[in-house]
């Protein structure tokens, strides 16, 4: 000891303390609104972050489980949003129940897409999901008797129930929606975590695209993959439902329902780290702040005059900075922020996993491999 990195054994008292501190820190951050008064738009921001995190988490499940990349999840997001919007306005449903309906509808659509996706690999799957993303807004416009066409559906609200004791009006509504979004994110996280850590999940990760190996292990890869695609779509649909309530409307012009939405989800997942469950949440925070920062750039008063002169009359500065930072990030942290943090943390602290066989000598053996190696993470993310 004494020198870095410090090594501690898994499930030893120091490890438990560390974990508890971590949980408390995350919990404190998410539950901060209880202890602090916030303005409605701050709740709005946090709600947006939860929505983005849930959507990215659904992508994470797909990649982590089946190795499939989808850029069609904006369509599921949109289907979820429209399911909620239509059920509330046309059928008078209570918003909360529409989440369940969105999950079911999107699960169905996801399975329908997932079945053909079974036969496709890599690029071809990317193209098919891309097609899905491109077609969705066009379909919304086309079927205007159901979706309101390009006018969209407006006036969506989720009134805070009286038992919450939240104040009436917009302020209370924003806070209520934040708690709803956080709850959905938490449920999504638990579902994904349990799936990935389940026996089937571990086996799927181990065999991934090797159908023969999976068959030997007694897993029906086709059914598993299709169901996972459906669950992923369902989670994304719920994110879309919350999004519709947050926007108070659903409209085909909304960028998040187009391919750009899919791009945002993918970017968030990669910024956070595709191989990590926390990645999407970290990524959503990072993306949101990142986006906010670049949007604020047009205020250039603090820049030197010649730079200001150069920038006069030039649009899109924010997007260019955003895109450049995104590319730069891929140089610095190709495994995302969580991957980067793990790599840095490993220089300070290594948690040594306890072996299932209780051989006292081997517990705490410094030669054992640390928890999850970044090199493995990279492989998990692909193919």
């Amino acid at each position: 000891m004494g020198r870095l990195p410090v090594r501690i054994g898994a499930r030893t008292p120091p490890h438990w303390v560390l974990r508890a501190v971590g949980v408390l820190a995350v919990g404190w951050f998410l539950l901060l609104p209880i202890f602090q008064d916030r303005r409605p738009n701050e709740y709005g921001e946090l709600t947006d972050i939860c929505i983005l995190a849930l959507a990215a988490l659904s992508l994470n499940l797909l990649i982590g489980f089946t190795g499939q990349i989808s850029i069609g999840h904006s369509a599921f997001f949109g289907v979820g949003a429209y399911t909620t919007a239509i059920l509330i306005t046309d059928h008078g449903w209570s918003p909360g129940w529409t989440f369940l309906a969105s999950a079911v509808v999107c699960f169905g659509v996801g399975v329908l897409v997932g079945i053909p996706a079974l036969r496709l690999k890599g690029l071809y799957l990317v193209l098919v999901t891309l097609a899905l993303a491109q077609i969705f807004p066009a379909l919304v416009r086309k079927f205007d008797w159901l979706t309101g066409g390009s006018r969209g559906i407006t006036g969506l609200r989720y009134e805070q129930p009286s038992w919450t004791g939240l104040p009436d009006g917009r302020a209370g509504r924003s806070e209520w929606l934040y708690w709803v979004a956080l709850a959905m994110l938490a449920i999504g996280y638990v579902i994904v975590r349990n799936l990935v850590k389940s026996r089937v999940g571990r086996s799927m990760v181990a065999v991934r695209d090797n159908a023969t190996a999976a068959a030997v292990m007694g897993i029906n890869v086709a059914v598993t993959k299709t169901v996972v695609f459906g669950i992923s779509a369902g989670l994304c649909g719920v994110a879309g439902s919350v999004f519709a309530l947050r926007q108070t409307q659903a409209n085909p012009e909304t960028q998040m329902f187009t391919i750009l939405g899919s791009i945002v989800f993918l970017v968030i997942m990669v910024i956070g780290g595709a191989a990590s469950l926390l990645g999407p949440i970290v990524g959503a925070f990072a993306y949101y702040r990142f986006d906010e920062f670049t949007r604020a750039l047009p205020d250039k008063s603090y820049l030197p005059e010649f730079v200001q002169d150069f920038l006069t009359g030039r649009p899109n500065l924010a997007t260019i900075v955003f895109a450049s930072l995104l590319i730069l990030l891929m140089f610095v942290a190709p495994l995302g922020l969580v991957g980067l943090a793990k790599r840095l943390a490993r220089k300070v602290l290594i948690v040594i996993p306890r072996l299932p066989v209780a051989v006292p000598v081997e517990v705490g053996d410094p030669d054992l491999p640390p928890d999850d190696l970044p090199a493995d993470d990279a492989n998990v993310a692909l193919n």
Partner: protein
Amino acid sequence: MARFLQYFFNGLSNGAIYSLLALSLVIVYRGSGHLNFAQGEMAMVSAFFAWWYGRSMPIWLAVIAAAVTAFVLGALIERFIIRPIGLRSPFAVVVAAIGLFLGLNALAPFAWRVTNPQPFKSLFPNDAGDFVRIGGATWRYERIGILVVMLVLAALLFLLFQRTKLGLSMRAVASNPESAPLVGIKTGQVLMVSWGLAAFVGAVGGAMVASVNTNVDAAMMFTIFFSAAAAATLGGFDSLGGAVLSGLALGAIENMAAGYFPDLIGQELRFSSSLLIIMIVLLVRPSGLFGSQRVERV
């Protein structure tokens, strides 16, 4: 019949543009195994270069100069962005390409201080009487011109790939990137050339779009890229001939679908129709119509 021919002719010209961009995608894919999401936006920036050069030189010369510029930019992007990131994580390349897509889309208006579409001279005769009449349908010279340019370029590409040492190197890298260095091929240079060549072909495509629209605009390649990607997919992603044929076919089919079924498909679902087609085709043939069965990299 006249109606059919009319849809067909116009569709072929749209299709020729898809073919050009699909060729770009295929050249990149064969070289490095990547789908370049930014290919359309690179073509758009090239069209802006052509527009810019065109202010001080004849428009055809400007297009060629822009294509050469695109070649250099494409090669530099491969060398300094795609390759180093690809070594870190292949998945990160997807995101880097998306970053390029967003960045380049924003770059043209930024670089030239323009927000509105800018006028672009037609590359072909396009007066009211510039057409031929075939079977009751009119075929405008500017539309024939695009088709001819595409076919000539495709033929040149075919000769390059089949008859030159450079083409042989490119085919060798596409076939077996691990073995290519063992016969003395500088894989890195081949990849740079592939990306440059793809950008060159895409730039010609961008100029054709600008010529048809008679303007350049940051959004000009957006929907076209997806149809081109569909064409490349339909063609099997590693076949040049497949890209050309699929591009033409999708162009014609889209136009006819929109023309014959104005209520069911119409302009709203016009571009979606080609995407629907590839979804169906991929169900039947998971590696496209012309694709060879081979190990894939994402």
